Structure formats: C-alpha cells, structure tokens
C-alpha cells in the first residue's frame, strides 16, 4: 500500500515538474534567441529520420484495419463503407496515436538517453557553468522540433494508411473503388482532420517534455540512463493513451 502511495506521489510530483519545465520552455521560446543549429539538427533527426517507422506503421495499420472492417461489414452488405471507417479512424484516432507511440519509442528514448548521458558526464553542469541555461540550449530546440514534426508525420501516416487501405480494398477485397472513395469523402469531416492535427501537436509536446525532463533529471551513471530512458518511453506512451481519451471527448465537444 505504502509502495503504491509512493509511486502515485512520485508520478504526481513528476507531472508537476514537467509542467514547470513546460513553463520554462514557453518563457525561453519568447525571450531567448533560438539555437537554430540544434533546432535544424533535431528537425532532421525527428522529422526526417522518423518517416520510415511512421510510414511502415501507417501502412500496416491502414491495411489491417481495412481488412478487419471489411470482414465485419461484408456480413451486413456494407462493403463500400469500409474506407469511410478507415478514413475517420486514421485521421482522428489511429494516425496521431500510432505516430505518437512510434515517435515516443524512437525519438523520446534517444532524447532521454542523450540528455541523461550529458547529465551523468557533467556536460549539463558544464553548460550551466558557461552561463547557458540547459532549457534554452537543449530543451527548446527539441520541443519545438517535435511539436512541428509530429503533425507532419501524422499526416504522412494518414496518407499512407488510407492509400494502402484503398489498394487493398480494390485489389484484394474486391470493393468498388469509386463508391468507396465517394463514401469516404462523404463521411469524413474537416473536424476529423483538425482533431488529428491538434492531437499530434499535443502528443509532440508531451513526448518531448517528458523525455527531456527524464534526461535532465537522470542519476546514477549508465544504470540511471537506462532507467530514465525506459521511464521516458513508458510515461510518454501512457500519457499519449490517457490524454487521447480526454482530448477526444474535449475536441468532440469543441469542434463538432
């Protein structure tokens, strides 16, 4: 019981500290000159180099979801509604969540490991002694790059997922393309796209803040870096899945 209490109190304290880090990031963003070199490096690492993993995830999810939906809809003769469901699900739910989980695994882990190693080898202290705030120099470029990259990666996941589903539907499942597409356009709203983009932005913020926080507060050498990296990925994934539910409810009320 006391262990559970300790875990909860540590989690709440951690979230509070992440919120304080967010405040510091926003303050730095508007008061300190951006470290462009680091920002471009992070954009390349997060935005460009995450494309393969996001493309693969988007394509496989789109196809599996299309096949499963088709097998159920086929029973009630609603074959041409398959792509509509895939379209709505990919844009508002699956696209941002899966892109978020992939980015958390690939980018969040790398961010925490890099900052954690800098912390335990005193490179963060060296930065501070050279009159440089670690948030300005390290955190802001990473947060900004993740927040910008996430919606772009999510849109990529949608496009590839829906395209892969369309190919599967017309070539293997025998669904009439013209009707399918017409239904998809008819049942998909701009609001689904807005919702997906807003979620992607928010998940990008969560992943980068949690990962940077874990890295900057890493202790105990190599073991500590490993633990911090593990915690960063687990906490980012949990934060994405939990916040997705509340965002869906909130944005449904706001946008629709």
């Amino acid at each position, binding site marked *: 019981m006391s262990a559970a209490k300790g875990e909860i109190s540590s989690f709440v304290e951690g979230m509070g500290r992440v919120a304080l880090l967010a405040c510091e990031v926003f303050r730095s963003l508007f008061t300190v000159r951006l470290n462009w070199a680091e920002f471009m490096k992070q954009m390349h690492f997060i935005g460009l180099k995450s494309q393969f993993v996001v493309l693969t995830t988007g394509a496989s999810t789109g196809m599996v979801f299309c096949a499963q939906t088709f097998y159920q809809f086929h029973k009630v003769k609603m074959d041409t509604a398959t792509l509509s469901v895939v379209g709505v699900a990919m844009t508002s739910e699956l696209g941002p969540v899966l892109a978020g989980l992939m980015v958390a695994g690939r980018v969040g882990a790398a961010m925490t490991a890099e900052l954690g190693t*800098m912390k335990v*080898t*005193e*490179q963060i*202290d*060296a*930065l*501070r*002694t*050279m*009159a*440089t*705030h670690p948030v300005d120099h390290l955190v802001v470029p990473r947060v900004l790059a993740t927040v910008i990259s996430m919606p772009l990666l999510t849109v990529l996941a949608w496009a590839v997922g829906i395209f892969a589903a369309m190919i599967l539907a017309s070539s293997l499942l025998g669904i009439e393309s013209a009707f399918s597409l017409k239904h998809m356009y008819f049942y998909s709203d701009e609001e689904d796209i807005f919702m997906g983009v807003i979620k992607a932005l928010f998940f990008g913020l969560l992943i980068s803040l949690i990962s940077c926080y874990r890295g900057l507060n890493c202790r105990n050498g190599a073991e500590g870096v490993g633990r911090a990296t593990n915690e960063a990925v687990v906490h980012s994934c949990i934060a994405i899945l939990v916040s997705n539910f509340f965002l869906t409810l909130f944005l449904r009320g706001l946008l629709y």
Partner: protein
Amino acid sequence: MIEVSQIRKSFGEQIVLNSISFTVKAGESVAIIGRSGTGKSVLIKHLLGLLSPDAGAVRVEGQDLVGMTERELLGVRQKFGMLFQGAALFDSMNVHDNIAFPLHRSGVTEPDEINRRVDEVLGLVELPGVGGKMPAELSGGMQKRVGLARAIVHRPQIILYDEPTTGLDPVVADSIDQLMMRVRDQYSVTSIVITHDMRCARRMGQRIIYLQEGQVYLDAPAEEVFNSEDPQVGRFIRGEADLKEVDFS
C-alpha cells in the same frame, strides 16, 4: 571576491557540508584538499550555484548566490571558468566548437576573432592542430587540456579545477600542473583547485584548506600546512593510512 559563510548541505540523512566558512581574495590561488567523501566537489558546486546550500551564504563579489534563480545565476557564472574532473567536453562537438562555445556565450561573434582565440588557447595547452578532432578521439590527458583551454578561453576572473590530475599518469599530471600554473601567472586569475594530488596542491595552492567530515579542519598558508605537525594532516599529506582505521580481517 568569494565568501563562503556557514554553509550546510545534506543529501537525505547524510550531512556533507557542516558549517563551512572561508574567503578567497581576488588573484589568490587556493587548494582544497581532503579525503574522498569529505564534500570537496559538493563545495565547489556551491561556489557556482550549481547546488544550493540548506543554510548559509555564498557571495561572489558581494552577490549572494543563495536564492538566485537559475537565470540570475547565469550572469554570475560568466565570471567563472571550470575544469571538470572528467573534462565534460560536449561529445557532439569537435574540439574547436567546444572551446569556442564560451566565446559565443560571452558575445564574441566575429569568426576570425573566435578562430584566433581558440588557436591561442590550443597553443597554450600545447595541442595545436587538434581543433577538428572529436573528444572521443582524444586521450584522457588531452581531454583535460582541452577542458582547460575551454575554461580559460573567455578570460574568466575565477577558475575552478575539480581534481585536474586525477586518473592521469605522472608525466601528464605534471604537464597539467605546469599549464595551470602558467594560466595562473599569465592571466592573474583567482584559482581554486580541489585535489588529492599533493604535488598539485603544493604547486597551485598559496593557501590550503583541509576539509574533514564536512568541516574546515585547517585553513592556512601552504608552507604551514605542509610542515604541519598535526598527525591527521601529516598522514594525509604523506599518503599514509591510519592503521587503526584499516580492517585486515
């Protein structure tokens, strides 16, 4: 210039610094010695505001660091240069960029001026031409020298050295000592050295502060400390264990 007044610091139950006070005047060179775990590195981090004491005050040129925000401390830290125990070079940057970093931070933007000053300090630490190498390509001694170059390039008023010769062979340790003395004499900077190496302490310290169990046990001119008849200080300087403390069973 630096005034440490009654500072206390604990980590959990463990008291690391227990009412430590001393002052360092401008241009003075002080060596802080003491056995492992007596709080030397923790103390030096308080001088920069990297750690905040539980009680007491740390003043640098009259400014009390305690209670300052991280952003307020950045201004104070521009007066300092620090050589870390493990050099703490940025492993994502090459040697040139590592050394140029404090120059950028202190507002030097002209590329020619940056290159000139980087080359100047690389010459001073006897590593000309290594600017393009990455830290991982350098030996431990070379990394320390690059760390020293980075600590002095922006001409700070105060330089802190955290165990500068630890882990180095005697020849490289000697070259680091020589460099530190050259920097001290050439730039007339205030120097504070934390060390276990008595040769380094003797060469660098005009004054020696001996820490024991988180307290200042002795604070005296170097000659007085090295000729001390106090058995504890004497044993430490000669590197002799107290046989009563050693359990051979």
